[in-house]
């Protein structure tokens, strides 16, 4: 079973690596952010698969933290593109 889990983790790693092409090419800033968001989701999936392989429950804590940090990164991105940094995407300006 561990071989299948390793294969699944490698496939997800490859798909997140391919998605970094979108981060590289854009064209908009939101597209670049989406490429890195996929790294967050894919990273959580890889960590869950590593938990299945090794059985160390601490890996699940890392997965929780990665999911949290990906959300904070996106909220920080939206705050940085709003005109006065307040984070309201529909404000005038």
């Amino acid at each position, binding site marked *: *079973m561990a071989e299948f889990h390793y294969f*699944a983790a490698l496939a997800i790693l490859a*798909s997140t690596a391919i998605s970094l092409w979108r981060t590289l090419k854009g064209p908009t800033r939101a597209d670049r952010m989406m490429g890195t968001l996929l790294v967050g989701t894919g990273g959580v999936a890889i960590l869950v698969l590593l938990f299945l392989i090794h059985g160390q429950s601490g890996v699940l804590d890392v997965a929780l933290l990665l999911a949290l940090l990906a959300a904070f990164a996106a909220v920080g991105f939206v705050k940085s593109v709003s005109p006065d940094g307040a984070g309201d995407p529909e404000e005038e300006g």
Partner: protein
Amino acid sequence: MMAAYASAVLIALGLIFFLAGTLGLLRFPDAHSRLHALTKADNLGLGFIVAGAAVQAGDVWTVLKLLLIWILALIASTTVAQLIARSAAPRNIGGEGGGG
């Protein structure tokens, strides 16, 4: 043995959704449809992989923690999808002259 097969099927389904999400992120024509592929297909794939891990988990607390990870990822992706979609929207959408 039954749990191992169920887990393998669920993880394979999750892989398909992950690959579909990446394909959508690369191939869809504009930012909002790419956001749609990213925040739905990938989180469904993550849900299948979490379910595949949960049927193999030893105790109920591990299952609850796996469920917590997925719920956190879902809440994060729904919030982030709204925020990024509104920040990527053209400024005059719905106004005079229609959206750009």
